[in-house]
């Protein structure tokens, strides 16, 4: 639900520009149009399965359970502890689901599936996605697409070969606030002026490695069958080469994708520093800082990304685009979102009047020859007049299911577009290893 100070027509205009037209039917701007949301439930049900019931799978399940017009037919997880608890939880919540250890058994056992959602460790993304696409299913696959560029490229190729849909889980691309800010504020109103820089971060406090309940260990032969050395590696696969890509791909993938999406292109170079400085039992960098260079039509812009896993300091997770006239600081957490206007920029009154921005107070009077004295005025602050109350992954999943139902609906993050971000994220890890600036050509980012 979108609560708006913008009217429905403007909101449609804003989001449709990013290919999110149908999103509106699921993110209604007022209670009146919410009726339209309920009407959507009359659409044919889509039978789907979730492969991977770990932490991310459970976040997706929270959304899947409340999306109308889909039936969760099965879930799959190699860890009996995860599988049993999720099957039980779904059955308790009224879903008649089957549980499988192996995705191939799931495909053999579930004959009426149309789609799968894949949320397994990165190194399994390509094999499972490719198999499911070839089985005639549409696939929503979590980011990263793969732990290797070759794996990601194979997914794009299979998508093209089979003609099936492959949505990658960069869910911000379907977030109405991001779509609005990009299309109305950055591109149309150009509130940042000439873009000169961007920065994004996702810093987290030091934590212990993930554990697991006693008596829930998988047998060594089962772990080996699925590519894990032991239970510790299974639970903490994100930190191991050959399985995941470390924090830069786990957290940075979402935000570096925003750099590319909002700049409208991929960078021409990457420079990075990082290391295994803290967690000596890990194989991926615990802290990393990356600088990308973008050659925009208006000049060079640099984008700095940091992901620290030893401190949560720094103000939460966000992506910030900075220009010579203003700044847009975006986050999935609306309380972190901020807009800043440089004093040299034209005032934003017209944008406020147009409902492109909301303002906390009226602007100070502009007559240079007069002044009024009263109590201290509050600082004028601007905000994005779009909020939505759905779960943050829900619009992206809905876009996927809507695209299955209606060929006129485009995916907000199809695999071939996601590949470009995938490539430059892998390049950041390469740049850390190489300890030098790496050039990135427009050709090599194409799948």
């Amino acid at each position, binding site marked *: *639900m979108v*609560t708006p100070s913008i009217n429905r027509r403007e909101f449609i205009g804003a989001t449709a520009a990013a290919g999110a037209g149908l999103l509106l039917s699921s993110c209604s701007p007022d*209670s009146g149009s*919410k009726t339209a949301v*309920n009407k959507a439930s009359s659409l044919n049900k889509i039978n789907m399965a979730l492969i991977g019931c770990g*932490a991310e799978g459970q976040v997706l399940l*929270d959304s899947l*359970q*409340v999306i*109308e017009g889909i039936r969760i037919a099965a879930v799959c997880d190699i860890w009996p502890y995860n599988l049993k608890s999720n099957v039980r*939880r779904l059955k*308790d*919540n*009224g879903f008649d689901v089957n549980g499988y250890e192996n995705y191939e058994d799931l495909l053999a056992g579930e004959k009426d599936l149309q789609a799968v959602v894949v949320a397994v460790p990165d190194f399994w993304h390509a094999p499972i996605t490719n198999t499911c696409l070839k089985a005639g299913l549409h696939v929503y696959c979590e980011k990263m697409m793969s732990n290797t560029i070759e794996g990601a490229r194979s997914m794009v190729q299979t998508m093209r070969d089979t003609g099936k849909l492959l949505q990658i889980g960069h869910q911000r691309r379907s977030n109405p606030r991001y779509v609005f800010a990009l299309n109305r504020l950055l591109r149309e109103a150009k509130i940042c002026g000439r873009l000169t820089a961007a920065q994004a971060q996702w810093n987290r406090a030091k*934590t*212990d*490695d*993930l*554990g*697991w*309940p*006693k*008596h829930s260990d998988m047998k060594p032969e089962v772990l080996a069958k699925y590519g894990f050395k032991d239970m510790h590696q299974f639970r903490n696969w994100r930190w191991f080469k050959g399985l995941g890509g470390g924090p830069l791909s786990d957290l940075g993938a979402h935000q570096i994708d925003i750099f590319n999406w909002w700049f409208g292109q991929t960078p021409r170079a990457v420079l990075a520093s990082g290391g295994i400085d803290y967690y000596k039992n890990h194989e991926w960098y615990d802290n990393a800082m990356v600088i990308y260079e973008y050659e925009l039509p208006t000049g060079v812009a640099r984008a700095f990304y940091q992901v620290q896993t030893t401190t949560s300091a720094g103000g939460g997770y966000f992506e910030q685009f900075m220009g010579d006239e203003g700044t847009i600081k975006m986050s999935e957490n*609306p309380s972190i979102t901020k807009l800043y206007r440089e004093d040299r920029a034209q005032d934003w009154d017209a944008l406020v009047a147009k409902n492109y921005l909301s303002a906390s107070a009226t602007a100070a009077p502009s007559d240079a020859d007069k002044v009024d004295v009263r109590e201290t005025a509050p600082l004028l602050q601007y905000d994005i007049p779009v*909020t*939505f*109350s*759905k*779960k*943050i992954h829900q619009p992206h999943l809905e876009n996927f299911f809507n695209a299955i139902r209606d060929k006129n609906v485009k995916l907000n993050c199809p695999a071939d577009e996601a590949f470009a971000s995938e490539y430059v994220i892998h390049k950041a890890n390469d740049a850390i290893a190489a300890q030098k600036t790496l050039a990135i050509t427009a050709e090599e980012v194409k799948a």
Partner: protein
Amino acid sequence: MSETGIQVFNHSAMATQFQVRIAGEEKTYAAQTAQAAFALVDDLESKLSRFRANSEIAQIAQLAPGEKLRLTRPVYDCLRLAQRMEFATRGAFSVTAAALRHQPTKPLWALVENEFTLRCDSGRLEFDLGAIGKGFALDRMAELLREWSCPAFMLVAGGSSILAGDAPSGTAGWDCGLGENNSSRRHWLANSSLSGSGLAVKGEHIFDPRTGLACSRRHRAWALTTSAAESDALSTACMILDETEIDDVVKRNADWLVFLNEKNEWRHLGQRPVPPLV
């Protein structure tokens, strides 16, 4: 780790401090267990907080009369428990307690059992789970700790609700005081929950859901039950109810015990045995 072999872990959530204390467990495993419990609290907060734009409680607040919302199981269970507590406390506890301050009549809602949906029947459903959500979270954390084979635990939510698991080895229970730090009134608790409500810390913040007026009780009340969600809600209701009403409420549930303290005189109401004094 303390000298008693109790590991203590802290985490900020639900606008307060949560604490997990685990007895008789190896340090790393205890830390990993606490980490899993805190992740569970964070997940519950993302669903139950009215301050999170994407929470189910925020979505419920946007429902128009006649509209329904499909809920995830934790939210459904928490609201179902809230309904039960509202009934059991004769309306002295309600998740719409503050509604009468903004709306002419109390909003009405229902849970549709076979659909796992909530239906808005009238008004604006401004739910505030502040007097049950933390307790509900403690109950779920306790389930997780037992699942992780850490049965000897003490869970604390913001100093106002605690949930004790098994007693630490060789003790009669967890040493718990009623009142400020190092209160003189102390009981050994095990496998039970104690919650306190009062006005000393947050001032006038408890309103009678039936009238919209500030609560009548000026002194603290404590509720001892097995479930932390119940003790959390019951202690709040006890700030609304007079002593006769409390007596009537607790005598209908053998699992409930209420402590009142006025003018340094302790009284307890209910059939549940009073836990041993320290």
